[in-house]
């Protein structure tokens, strides 16, 4: 019996403003000026005392960024003013490994978001990024002793330069797209994870990303390497204060899953409605490896994000589970990509998009099977639920097949919450909001049931909040 429903109901009445939308005073160790330049890139690199190759990587990336035009597909990016953004804020001089060592305002923020409590209850490790830097980081002792590395990306570069240098920009090239180039130029923070062969990390590792300042640009960079037959579940959450002007979040996440390994990456994205969320995520899965993206997008003004899996080794398996909820003033251009390069690879893409109050949510995906990937199997299911006449859902399922011996399935449905279905539930005593939330929870259930209970509850609660129309 699902515990989630009562938990969901407990979320009624709270709203984004109180729970996540607050901000605290800025008392920072360093804050850059607004705008983007090679001088800024130098300043970031110097602050971090980086090796020369990384400084060059950044400068080159900035040139790529300048050279590339703005994308003209997806969402409306014309509102982004790159000169108005703060690209680098270092809130504290040093990273803490106890919550008590953080400045009071920052610790208070994490307490309100419930991160220290979650760490105690069900996490193997936590990284907490505030503005540009990971201000708190900790991994359970027993995992450290098994050789698991879970650091912020800057520490990863300092302490494991060879691994970072070998992989960074290889899964997502600097010049992959305009926003990957921007991230490569000004990246700061993010997670660096290495799981040694055969090690299974039973509890999730969690990173939490918090923007506090107005017009902030957050550009974390994450690299995850899951070695042979190893397993890790990485979870990220993110929130920001509500401001009348825009912020920008543009991350790059690169993942390598080696032979027989498995990586699950769960995102519960709940940015405030003034954040542009333009993220590039890509994983490669080698022989018999499994990569799973669970991508929940509830917040932000505009999200453009299509987590990708390249199935490079025979027997590799990829899954993308995507939830996109577009409320008032929101556009979720979500989706996923699976590219079958090796024989007997399998993939499943399941997308559930919900739109209400004039919001837009949809699926944009690519399924590609390269010549030689014989015996590849894939299934793409995209379902859309539209809650009212003003809202919109779009489906762009691109499929490219260069191999004959394949088994590909694609299904798409669009439904609306019917008056009859609502009446049925209301005739049992549920209010209209409760009844709608129940229908939506049921609609996304194929995805929430894949999540650990705590995250399923969180996701359902956020959906309930969205249904109350109190977000943003």
């Amino acid at each position, binding site marked *: 019996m699902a515990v*989630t*429903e009562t938990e969901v109901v407990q979320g009624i009445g709270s709203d984004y403003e109180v729970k996540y939308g607050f901000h605290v005073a800025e008392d920072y160790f360093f804050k850059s000026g607004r705008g983007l330049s090679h001088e800024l890139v130098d300043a970031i690199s110097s602050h971090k005392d980086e090796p020369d190759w990384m400084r060059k990587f950044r400068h080159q990336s900035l040139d790529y960024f300048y050279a590339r035009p703005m994308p003209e597909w997806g969402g409306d990016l014309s509102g982004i003013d790159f000169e108005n953004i703060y690209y680098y804020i270092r809130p504290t001089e040093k990273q803490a490994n106890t919550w008590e060592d953080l400045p009071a305002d920052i610790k208070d923020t994490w307490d309100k978001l419930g991160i220290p409590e979650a760490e105690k209850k069900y996490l193997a490790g936590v990284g907490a990024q505030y503005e540009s830097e990971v201000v708190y980081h900790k991994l359970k002792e027993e995992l450290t002793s098994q050789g698991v590395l879970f650091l912020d990306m800057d520490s990863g570069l300092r302490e494991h330069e060879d691994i970072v240098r070998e992989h960074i920009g290889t899964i997502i090239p600097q010049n992959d797209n305009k926003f990957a180039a921007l991230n490569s130029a000004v990246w700061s923070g993010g997670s660096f994870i290495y799981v040694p062969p055969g090690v299974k990390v039973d509890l999730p590792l969690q990173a939490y990303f918090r923007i506090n300042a107005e017009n902030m640009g957050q550009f974390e960079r994450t690299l995850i390497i899951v070695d042979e037959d190893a397993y890790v579940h990485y979870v990220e959450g993110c929130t920001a204060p509500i401001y009348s002007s825009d912020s920008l979040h543009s991350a790059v996440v690169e993942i390598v899953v080696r032979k027989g390994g498995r990586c699950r990456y769960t995102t519960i994205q709940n940015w405030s409605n003034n954040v542009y969320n333009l993220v590039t995520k890509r994983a490669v899965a080698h022989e018999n490896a499994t990569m799973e993206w669970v991508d929940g997008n509830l917040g932000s003004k505009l999200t453009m994000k299509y987590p990708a899996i390249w199935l490079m080794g025979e027997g590799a398996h990829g899954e993308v589970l995507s939830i996109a909820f577009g409320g008032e003033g929101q556009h979720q251009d979500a989706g996923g990509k699976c590219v079958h390069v090796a024989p007997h690879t399998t993939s499943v893409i399941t997308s559930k998009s919900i739109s209400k109050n004039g919001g837009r949510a949809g699926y944009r995906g690519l399924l590609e099977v390269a010549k030689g990937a014989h015996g590849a199997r894939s299934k793409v299911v995209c379902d859309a639920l539209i809650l009212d006449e003003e809202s919109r859902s779009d489906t762009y399922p691109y499929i490219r097949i260069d191999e004959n011996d394949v088994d590909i399935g694609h299904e798409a449905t669009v439904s609306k919450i019917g*008056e009859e279905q609502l009446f049925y539930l209301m005739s049992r*005593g549920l209010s209209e909001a409760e009844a709608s939330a129940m229908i939506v929870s*049921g609609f*996304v259930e194929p995805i929430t049931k894949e999540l650990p209970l705590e995250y399923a509850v969180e996701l359902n609660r956020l959906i309930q909040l969205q249904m109350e129309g109190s977000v943003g």
Partner: protein
Amino acid sequence: MALLEIKNLHVALEDGTEIVKGVDLAIDTNEVHAVMGPNGSGKSTLAYALMGHPAYEITEGEIFLDGEDLVELGADERAQRGLFLAFQYPYAVPGVTVASFLRSAVNAVRKARNGGADDPVPVPEFRKRLMAAMDELGVSKEMAGRYLNEGFSGGEKKRIEILQMAMLDPRIAVLDETDSGLDIDALRVVAGGVKGLVGETMGALVITHYQRILNYITPDYVHVFVGGKIVAEGGPELAHRLEAEGYEAFVPAEALAGGES
């Protein structure tokens, strides 16, 4: 005043067509009333209008439950006050299990009856009640974990309607053609379930085309409903007369045809 009093009820569709044309009914606890009518007589419209379906407008008349007029209340508020409708065609809610749906519904009703303050039923108590009610209605335990009405057979849907009724403790239960599409075994179980609930705290209004279900639930009163109106009233013997003589015996054939909608 009876527990449920329906006074001069007129109901119209959104386009203004009048379907229910002045109905008076009074139902108390411990009573079973049968409303019997042919297809198209407006029986289901009456049921939906009682429950507060937004597509059916009450143009005239009143519905009192325990002395309170329900006409301006939404379906949720009517349910919270103790009105229940067993649907002829229950809707599916994919992804929501029978158990979790029932728990949410029970808690919504408890909250309303507790003056708006949360009063959730403790999980073990809920589970016990649910299992007992399922036993009683011959519903297999695995149904609790299935998605509400999704892929259910006609018989399963009707049993789950009665299960919902049992769990929600209504004061007045309206059953809209609950007998349609049921085989004899299912009919016996469903009717037995209803009969078991009618008593000191509940009365029932059984809406039906056929007399069949009334073999299992003997009505105290029978109302013959044709063309949006009650045209004859009596005791259980009236149902048998209807079965033998047909609806034509109660109204001229042309009026019967005119009642179609």
